[in-house]
């Protein structure tokens, strides 16, 4: 892995590392606050999958767009959302990204090009393609990264969207986060062909599978797909094989997974792997790593404090934002 760090540069490499640590610590802290009932509803943690969001989003410009699903904290943070506003949204506070009306599953941050946060499996896919269509129609040159899971690949909206994206050569990259389980159903129990990346062929676009625990592998694959999209050569499908270290949501003890499987994947923690590569390339030492962890931990604590001290929305907010003012 470390031999692939050369073209990245130390500053950028450490920026990615810091982002992965931020997502990890943010999610761990969110889990605690969920236990304290500061966060309600569903809470789907991205722990274990950090390399996918960080590697992929590191390849796009600020004005490019990201669309995600209900496990969306990591994508928003990687796109630049303020952890304070993300945490406040989880707390349901008026200072949250969506003034407390979206919640964990519906983050939106227009300022940073993060356009949702959709909690219907595959529901965000045609909308993401619509962003790409707008970019193409208006000549904006923007590229869209659309994240979704292995479960989404069996929805009709997946197939409808890839077909039209391939047909119209839309500037979009479909990033399939295959964490092997659609809730509790393993991918080979739900897909006639579990080689999901091969579905790209049916829609006349390149498809490939990459190691989703390797941030540099994700970055390389998505980077090439983004280049293609920006050049007008059309969409791509990148399947990142990854693993969520926690259950589907906080409500899920994940009894459907074998302990040996969990342990085997835990041994491939994307942050540990990247840290080792950085150390081998002499870009990071133990003291430096500790410093990053401490700084990020303080940042997350500040986010929790901000969320906790912020007010809930006032009653009159209930009927606001149902319709846009003409």
């Amino acid at each position, binding site marked *: 892995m470390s031999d692939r760090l050369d073209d990245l540069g130390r500053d950028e490499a450490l920026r990615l590392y810091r982002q992965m640590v931020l997502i990890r610590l943010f999610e761990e802290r969110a889990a605690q606050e969920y236990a304290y009932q500061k966060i309600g509803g569903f809470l789907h943690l991205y722990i274990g999958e950090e390399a996918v969001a960080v590697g992929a989003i590191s390849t796009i410009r600020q004005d490019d767009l990201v669309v995600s699903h209900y496990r969306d904290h990591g994508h928003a943070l990687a796109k630049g959302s303020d952890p304070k506003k993300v945490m406040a949204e989880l707390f349901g506070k008026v200072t*949250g*990204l*969506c*003034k*407390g*009306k*979206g919640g964990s599953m*519906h983050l*939106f*941050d*227009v300022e940073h090009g993060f*356009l*949702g*946060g*959709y909690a*219907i499996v595959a*529901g*965000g*896919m*045609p*909308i*993401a*393609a*619509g*962003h*790409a*269509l*707008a*970019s193409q*129609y*208006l000549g904006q040159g923007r590229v869209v990264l659309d994240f979704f899971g292995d479960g989404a690949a069996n929805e*009709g*909206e997946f197939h*409808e*969207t890839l*077909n*039209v994206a391939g*047909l119209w050569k839309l500037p979009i990259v479909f990033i399939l986060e295959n964490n092997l389980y659609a809730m509790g159903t393993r991918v080979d129990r739900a897909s006639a062909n579990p080689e999901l990346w091969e579905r790209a062929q049916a829609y006349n676009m390149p498809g490939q599978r990459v190691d989703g625990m390797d941030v540099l592998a994700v970055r390389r694959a998505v980077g090439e797909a983004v280049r293609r999209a920006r050049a007008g050569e059309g969409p791509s499908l990148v399947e990142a094989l990854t693993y969520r270290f926690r259950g589907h949501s906080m409500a899920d003890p994940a009894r459907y997974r074998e302990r040996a499987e969990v342990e085997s994947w835990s041994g491939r923690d994307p942050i540990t792997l990247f840290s080792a590569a950085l150390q081998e390339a002499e870009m990071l030492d133990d003291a430096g790593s500790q410093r990053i962890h401490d700084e990020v931990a303080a940042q997350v604590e500040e986010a929790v404090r901000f969320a906790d001290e912020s007010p809930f929305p006032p009653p009159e907010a209930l009927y*606001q*934002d*149902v*319709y*846009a*003012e*003409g």
Partner: protein
Amino acid sequence: MPEMTYREALSLALREELRRRDCFFLMGEDIGAYGGSYAVTKGFLEEFGERRVKDTPISESAIVGLAIGAAMLGACPMIELMTINFSLLAMDQIVNHAAKIHYMSGGQVAVPLVLRMPTGGGFQLGAQHSQNLEGWFAHVPGLKVVTPSTPYDAKGLLKAAINDGNPVIFVEHSLLYGMRGEVPEEEYVVPLGQAAIRREGTDLTLIAYSRMAHVALEAADKLAARGISAEVVDLRSLRPLDVDALVRSVQKTNRALVVEEAPKSGGFGGEVVATISDQAFDFLDAPVGWVGGADVPMPYTRPLEALAIPDADKVVAGVQRMMPGRFR
């Protein structure tokens, strides 16, 4: 004032917008090379080209989702769905997404999008092509629903819908496309959420929308011959509903009968009945009447289909049940 058909009025509104604004474009099944299944977009491909008039695959969910995504970013897409029955394939995008995004995002992003689709039965198209599902959409906060019944309203409401800034379900009626009426040459809009009094009366109010507004007018003629003066209110918008217009009319007539083409159970007519009972109870001299479609999947054969859809005679019979002593 020039006369034109409902179809031509829609077509004119779209042409004007396409000429006016480059951000405005159309998407739908067979709207381009074929010219539109009800010929509203005939000749558009030749005039505006493939960039502005996009034939899509038969993928209703993707079509609507694409339009939502484009609308969120400042493009101005308009969708034609071939019939309201096919909107069910896009229900996830319309209800779970278009209607919710503005609210879920805390007002950060809007979905200014018009979805045109014909509703209704009466053409022997059978159970899967003859439904009136507009009431379903009217149930959803975040959507607006309009149902023009005349060429004038078709053009004026479409202009208002295009400029509304929200997802608008624009419900045409498949049997009204050939109907003729006056349409002004100058620019005008018909604001969303405003009902129209189609005929003044004093004895009772008939409330309808879309093609049933014409059935109500025909019934009003027949009632006049029987000595009953019926006022006809055309809702024009189901959401927002013009509650004030309903209340004002009932204050005057003290009786109301709702006419709807859809099956009654769980339908929009019940919403109107309930609204009048809730808002104007003290002015009512009788329970609110209600004539609706039969509670059956639409049959194909002509005599049964005719039984299933309200007509003027059924409306007159409904009124007779409400006020038997008044009939001449």
